[in-house]
């Protein structure tokens, strides 16, 4: 477990380590390092050998560490650190406070009943599936090339490559445990980044702390899932914010062309992490660039008013209706109407949303340059995310950062009019309010995932089953309900048809199988189930039918629900006595190779 704590940090540290050889700017260093790893994996896959990439990584890390140590020694780092600390004695104290507060929040509240390595993030399993394949030597540009769990490509495999690093170094590492700690690092980095950006924009540690509190305690518990989930889109948005900080922190004397070039590499990485969110993130960064460089010589106040009109128009146009984009079945569920969007905002911010309005007004009236720039960028991001189009609310993963800053601005600009003595009390008061809001919000999210004393998408029994499968089989096709095979595929490394995104033909086969009482017919129906990727079908494999609590819960759904990608059995279930009749029928005709009180595995 403690190895996973260390190695999970490689996702963030490894690219930095490599990138720092070339630049001191964090956004460029991480982006450059990440892209270099991605290209390294792609090129090495041509001549891949199980040890080649591992030793290449050792060489790259060793060189980077030596090179950076040499550069630091030349620059008298001790003097630089002591000068920095003397300049702002309280900075370390604030950082320590944030680290302790949000470590307790993450480990003591969010993961209170989700011990290592259980998960509350349903999406991790598809990413684990891809990363396991990459760590096994199957590297590719896009995820759908190596697994049919992905029915379309929303990103490159940059995210998955970085996630796979610990397993490339040591293939005994289980990425499920790595992910558990990865989300901790993401959370801490996000809150610290918010602190630094707030501190920069308001020139105050208290403002930074406020921004950090908002970023850490406002949990977007539906559709977006910031700040607690690590997903390609959340990492893309985080990189955008880090890039924003780096850009606003530039020396004023930096010329426009150099500024633009400094943004280029992070923008490429942001796009590679998530195409659609990346495009909007790059667009927002370009807005920030244009405003900061004053390219069009426009009044910021007028631009802010225009942006707020745009955001209002976008929001209130939801009253007219929603436009469904794409003909994907789930699109309808991502088209929220006006009332639902207000409901979500109220869930996440409660009455603090009024401070957003106050913040907008105060920034326009008395805000500084960087504050106005963030306001305009935030309002444009908000206009995009609140538009009455299906899926567009997902862009709130970007807009949310700016909304938090504007709320922080609302509080800080009011505080600036009050005696300085009130600041600690106000910070404490909002810290308390936000922590209570967070507690209930995250609790509401977790409640439906309760199973046998834990809140989780998966159970320990399912994990042990997956480990057993990994040990026992080199190649197998897992056939079960969408949720079961999705989870088992990701942890065991064995294959399934589509995971949770199994196609209609396979779903229909599963429905038929459950109604058959002739073993030959069951066998024939199972034989029709094939992976959609030819590379998987060309291997010799065993076929495993896995039934269990989730499987029977899925069969209890009606046909519309069974067809749906959007509906899954999100938490584990035990086998109940009514299921035994069917299990006994299968056991009389097929070989049981494994069973526990949640799952039974038959070799067909």
């Amino acid at each position, binding site marked *: 477990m403690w190895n996973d704590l260390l190695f999970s940090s490689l996702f963030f540290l490894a690219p930095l380590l490599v990138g720092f050889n070339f630049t001191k700017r964090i956004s460029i260093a991480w982006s450059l390092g990440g892209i270099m790893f991605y290209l390294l994996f792609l090129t090495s896959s041509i001549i891949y050998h199980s040890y080649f990439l591992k030793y290449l990584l050792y060489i790259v890390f060793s060189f980077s560490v030596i090179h950076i140590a040499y550069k630091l020694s030349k620059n008298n780092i001790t003097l630089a650190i002591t000068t920095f600390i003397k300049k702002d004695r309280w900075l370390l104290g604030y950082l320590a406070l944030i680290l302790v507060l949000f470590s307790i929040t993450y480990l003591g509240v969010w993961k209170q009943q989700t011990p290592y390595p259980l998960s509350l993030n349903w999406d991790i399993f598809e990413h684990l599936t891809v990363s396991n394949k990459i760590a096994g030597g199957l590297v590719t540009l896009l995820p759908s090339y190596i697994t049919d769990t992905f029915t379309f490509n929303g990103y490159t495999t940059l995210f998955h490559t970085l996630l796979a690093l610990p397993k490339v170094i040591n293939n005994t590492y289980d990425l499920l445990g790595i992910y558990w700690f990865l989300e901790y690092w993401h959370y801490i980095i996000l809150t610290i980044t918010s602190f630094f950006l707030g501190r920069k924009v308001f020139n105050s540690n208290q403002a930074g702390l406020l921004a950090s509190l908002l970023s850490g305690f406002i949990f977007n518990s539906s559709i977006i899932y910031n700040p607690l989930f690590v997903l390609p889109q959340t990492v893309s948005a985080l990189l955008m914010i880090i890039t924003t900080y780096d850009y606003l922190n530039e020396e004023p004397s930096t010329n426009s062309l150099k500024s633009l070039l400094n943004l280029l590499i992070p923008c490429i990485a942001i796009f590679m992490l998530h195409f659609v969110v990346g495009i909007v993130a790059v667009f927002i960064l370009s807005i920030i660039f244009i405003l900061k460089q004053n390219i069009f010589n426009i009044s910021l106040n007028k631009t802010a008013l225009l942006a707020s009109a745009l955001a209002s128009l976008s929001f209130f146009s939801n009253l007219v209706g929603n436009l469904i984009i794409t003909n994907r079945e789930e699109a309808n569920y991502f088209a929220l109407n006006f009332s639902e969007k207000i409901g979500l905002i*109220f869930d996440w911010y409660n009455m603090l949303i*009024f401070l957003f309005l106050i913040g907008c007004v105060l920034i326009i009236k008395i805000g500084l340059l960087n504050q106005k720039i963030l306001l305009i960028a935030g309002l444009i991001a908000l206009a995009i995310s609140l538009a009455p189009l299906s899926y567009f609310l997902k862009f709130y993963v970007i807009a949310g950062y700016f909304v938090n800053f504007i709320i922080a601005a609302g509080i800080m600009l*009011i505080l600036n009019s009050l*005696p300085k003595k009130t600041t600690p009390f106000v910070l404490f*008061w909002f810290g308390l309010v936000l922590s209570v809001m967070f507690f209930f919000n995250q609790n509401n999210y977790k409640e439906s995932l*309760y199973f046998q004393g834990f809140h989780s998408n998966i159970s320990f029994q399912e994990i042990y089953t997956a480990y057993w499968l990994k040990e026992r089989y080199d190649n197998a096709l897992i056939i079960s309900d969408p949720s079961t095979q999705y989870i088992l595929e990701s942890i065991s490394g064995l294959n399934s048809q589509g995971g949770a995104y199994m196609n209609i033909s396979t779903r229909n086969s599963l429905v038929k199988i459950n109604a058959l009482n002739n073993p030959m017919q069951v066998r024939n129906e199972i034989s029709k189930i094939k992976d959609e990727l030819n590379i998987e079908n060309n291997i010799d494999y065993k076929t495993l039918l896995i039934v269990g609590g989730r499987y029977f819960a899925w069969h209890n759904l009606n046909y519309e629900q069974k067809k749906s990608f959007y509906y899954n059995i999100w938490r584990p279930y035990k086998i109940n*006595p009514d299921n035994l009749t069917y299990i006994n029928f299968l056991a009389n005709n097929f070989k049981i190779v494994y069973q526990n009180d949640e799952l039974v595995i038959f070799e067909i």
Partner: protein
Amino acid sequence: MVTIRNIIYTLILVIIGLISFISVITINSLNSFSQKDYQVKFNQFAAVFYSADLSSEVFKISPLDDYVYTNTSKNHVIPESDFNKAKDITNSFWNKIQVLLFHQSRIIWQAEGKNKVKVTYEMTEQPNSSVKITRKFSNLNPDTYAIGQSIVLCKDCFVTDQIKRVYFNSSDYSQERIRLADSYHLIPILLTDNVLPNDVSRIIIIDTNFNLRFIIPTQPGQQIFYDQKWSLLELKTPVNKRLLETSQIINFKNVE
């Protein structure tokens, strides 16, 4: 020096924080009914009642399972193919304000079909560990004369009544379950047409350990159907054509 502006600004910050603090505690404590005998959650297609610790599903209700009776047909309120969308109105902004202001313990879930049929399920807390489920319909066929209030039961539960009869479908039962029921001194009854006898005044649902899950008092004029294969209990209830609304009480404790 304390100025009026300072006071106003301080009050703004304090009041906004205070309202957020109080409302988040109040609303969340009302989302699951305070007696804590059960919790109600929603998925895209159904309102699901769980045991208090969320460890097991007790029953669920859905327009995909409820029936509409007209003179010529019996159909689901919203057929599968027509199902459009469901939403938990409990958490809508307006309902939360009502809950805050009037302190009503009420959960509302609404579903609509592409056929324009809309059904609202209101679950209201009642004394003695009970909940009242009211179904309000709009845009139904004007010839509707009865609603089949369906409840999908826990899979391993038994359907019994006030005189300890336990019901099975003659087409779908197992000897193990009959033996188990017999061991609890229940009288097994095989239903040939899924209809329970007219003298059932209380439907008592128990689990395989003879623990009470819930009780439904029946109403005059109701016809009760039990389909064991789907664990579906249906109470066919006559409705007034002007007021397409039905209600039923579910007791989680045995209160005679």
